[in-house]
């Protein structure tokens, strides 16, 4: 089974790196990281913070866009083009197909993030402001991309690319706003509504675990405990989402 997943993953990776969208995103990301240097000249005070903020935000935005734009079409496009029938006619389990697609995109994201990080650190080293804490922040961002990819694949198994895109981006937004449920609960008088908020808070993805950009830029410690917790959360939540994606694809009717 791992061999079949690996074969699909490598094929997905090969397909993804032929996608022009990926290169367009990478070029934009590289340009933005370079632009940060020009923007930082307008500041009064430390230019370093602006260069680091711009770099991390660029990696975050373009990583998420790559996850969403490539992830939403992974399964649904195969069905649309009917290429999935060729694969499923072979002795391949549907779950293997979904997992192969996921790991293929994860590999693409790894390469994509590594390229952006190398470019970013190139700029930082040239300015003499490289910092290991920033690398930890990028590892956490990569974990976030993996979780978003899992969500994109789940929606891709359930719906068409446009709906998948909207739903994945909506969960990305909600995932960064979960802290506001506490504010909402404080204002709600109904016990039922407060319980619903608590349930939603637990069920929806909490992406704040992967966001330490501010801390890393300010030189505050990003501990092994933070990294371990985020990894554990990704393992639990990501696996749950992938299992749901596999279940959804297994039940999907192919015509």
């Amino acid at each position: 089974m791992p061999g079949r997943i690996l074969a699909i993953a490598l094929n997905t990776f090969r397909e993804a790196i032929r996608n022009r969208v990926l290169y367009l995103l990478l070029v934009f990301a590289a340009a933005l990281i370079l632009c940060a240097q020009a923007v930082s000249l307008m500041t009064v005070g430390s230019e370093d913070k602006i260069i680091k903020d711009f770099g991390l935000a660029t990696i975050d935005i373009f990583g998420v866009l790559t996850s969403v734009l490539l992830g939403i079409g992974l399964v649904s496009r195969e069905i649309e083009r009917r290429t999935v029938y060729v694969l499923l006619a072979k002795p391949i389990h549907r779950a293997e197909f979904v997992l192969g697609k996921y790991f293929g995109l994860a590999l693409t994201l790894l390469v994509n993030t590594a390229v952006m990080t190398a470019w970013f650190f190139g700029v930082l080293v040239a300015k003499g402001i490289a910092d290991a804490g920033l690398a930890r922040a990028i590892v956490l961002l990569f974990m976030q991309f993996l979780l978003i990819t899992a969500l994109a694949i789940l929606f891709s198994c359930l719906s068409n690319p446009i709906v998948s895109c909207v739903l994945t981006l909506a969960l990305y937004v909600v995932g960064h706003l979960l802290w506001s449920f506490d504010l909402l609960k404080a204002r709600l008088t109904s016990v039922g509504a407060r319980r619903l908020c608590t349930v939603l808070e637990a069920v929806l993805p909490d992406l704040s675990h992967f966001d330490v950009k501010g801390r890393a830029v300010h030189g505050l410690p990003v501990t092994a405990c933070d990294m371990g917790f985020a990894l554990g959360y990704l393992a639990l939540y990501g696996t749950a989402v992938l299992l749901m994606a596999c279940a959804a694809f297994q039940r999907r009717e192919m015509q």
Partner: protein
Amino acid sequence: MSAAAYRRPRRLPLLAAAVGLLAAAGLASAGAAAARQADERVAPLLYLPTGRYLKAAAMGFDAILADVLYLWSIQYYSNYRIEDRYRYLEHIYRDVITELDPRYIDPYLVGALIMTAEARQPEMALRLLDKGIEHNPADWILPFEAGYVCYNEIRDYARAARYFEIALRSPDVHPAVRRFHAEMYNRAGDPRTSLREWASIWETTGDPYVRAVAWNHVHDLRVEVDITTLREAIARFVAARGRRPARLEDLVAAGTIDALPADPDGGAYAYDPARGTVAYRGSRVLGR
């Protein structure tokens, strides 16, 4: 259709029309921008929500949003054409930029500078710096800046000394802060504490220049403190005996003072028994 009858559409007029339309749009846009610039008012800032709401909208990009708003604020407050630009100054720096990224030091410093030097509102600057100190307790520059505002703008030296004391708790503090701290006590009317602080600097510094500066202060403060001590002792002596002491040594004999202080040159202070005044025989280094 024959080949002769078919004529390819001519592209030149279309391109010329497109260029013309683009030029017209560009000119209209530039005109509108110039009109906007001539009519710049502070009103748009009214609609800038507080950092709490912007933080929610930023979705994890609050630090970069703070950067962008800070860069914008520098350009905005450098524009002297906007006459009422200081109206929302505190809102921009205290409620928006530093709310989005409370650990970003530069907006506190630049905001405080604009508030004191341009808007002439030092108390507003101190409120901003207090917020910065609260969120960045390990940083020395913010309490130093607050102390400097108290010293240079408000001339509240006791308050300045308290801020410099906060700055001194930071292990990375610049050595000059100790000198500011020591001097503030003198200006606040507490020469004894000031002398103690300057003497501590003189004893501990390894920098010959700082040591020389500290000695100048120690010298003059010691004269001031000694003369005050002797005057107080004379006053107590007069209150107890109903007459002035004939010599300063009488103060020790009467138990009014434990021992007579020597002046910084090792000599005795001059005493005029007729007028009951004490003076230093030498001259003060700083001439104050």
